[in-house]
């Protein structure tokens, strides 16, 4: 990894920071339970809200550490750094290298949400890696200096349904 986020823990307050942004450690029961609760509401698109809020939070973070400038010399390196951060945070392993134009396919061969969901609820037909869609939007919005709404990210196949890997189709709006 060329970039390792700085983790700071204030033990007397039980506050945890990654590069000075408040974070906390949550287990798959919590994260998958949240998705399960949101998906149960059928009269508005709660998952769209979830993806958008994830994108906003990642974007706020990436503005600090993922801008292509003197320190990160190319889009390729910025995408690589984003992959490293994704893995560092425990969300799995993702390949963003095909998104160099801001469009294309991202693939993931290891997914926190897939292993977590399988452990609790088992397989299903619908994709489950919603947070990753927000993550990809934020990565591209930062690198290409756009708004997170300028990118459409769809999970076109997911390992939760026996696919070999999770695939995300990315297009510009």
């Amino acid at each position, binding site marked *: 990894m060329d970039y390792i986020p700085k983790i700071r823990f204030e033990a007397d307050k*039980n506050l945890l920071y990654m590069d000075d942004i408040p974070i906390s450690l949550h287990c*798959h029961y919590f994260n998958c339970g949240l998705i399960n609760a949101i998906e149960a509401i059928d009269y508005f698109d709660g998952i769209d809200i979830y993806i958008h809020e994830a994108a906003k939070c990642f974007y706020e973070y990436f503005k600090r550490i993922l801008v292509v400038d003197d320190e990160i010399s190319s889009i390729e390196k910025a995408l690589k750094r984003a992959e490293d951060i994704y893995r560092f945070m425990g969300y799995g392993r993702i390949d963003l290298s095909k998104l160099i134009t801001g469009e294309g396919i991202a693939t993931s061969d290891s997914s926190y949400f897939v*292993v977590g969901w399988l452990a609790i609820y088992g397989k299903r037909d619908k994709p489950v890696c919603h947070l990753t869609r927000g993550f990809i939007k934020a990565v591209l919005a930062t690198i290409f200096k756009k708004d997170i709404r300028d990118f459409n990210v769809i999970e076109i196949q997911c390992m939760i349904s026996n696919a070999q890997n999770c695939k995300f189709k990315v297009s510009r709006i």
Partner: protein
Amino acid sequence: MAFDPKKVIEWGMSLPLMSNERGIMAAFGIYAAMNFNEFFFSTVSKIMHMATEEDAVEVEKKLYNAVLDCAYYTFHGARTSVDWQDYIAPMIETKEDELMALVAFTNIFGVGYIEVVELIPGQRLVTEVKNAYDPPRYIEEFGIQKRGRCYMFSACTAACMDLVYGPVFPKGIGTFKAEEVLCIAKGDPVCRFVATLK
């Protein structure tokens, strides 16, 4: 050896909580990930304000149960680990020590500091948190709330009682039920959680 909650936190901080090459962080039988605190707040608060009252209550129940599962299984995984047996168990002489140790263990995840303010063994546990992330954010974004918003701490308080005073793992989950009786989001000075037998 007298029980010292700081030792539990020191031990927890020393754990190598790192994701592996596949980006998976497995510990104590669960998979962990780092979440932005703002993400949980902003997502859940928007859902709650868009949902009907009935559905909001249902979402709250599901979140409570998700955290109950999380805490019950994670804390049990921790207390049965070799490291816990080596480092923490020698300090634990009574069930009450174990309860204090589990509450202290909550204080390594970055969610705000939880303290025990009252314990009636086997019957009632009262905990308080003064610095949870969500309550001030609820007030900033939506004003004073009608209900408590700290679903995580309610369920953690119940899970600690389930593990120590409930039937033997894994049958004890849900033996106790916790409620948030005070919440900073409601304008109270602290967030307070009371777990009692169901």
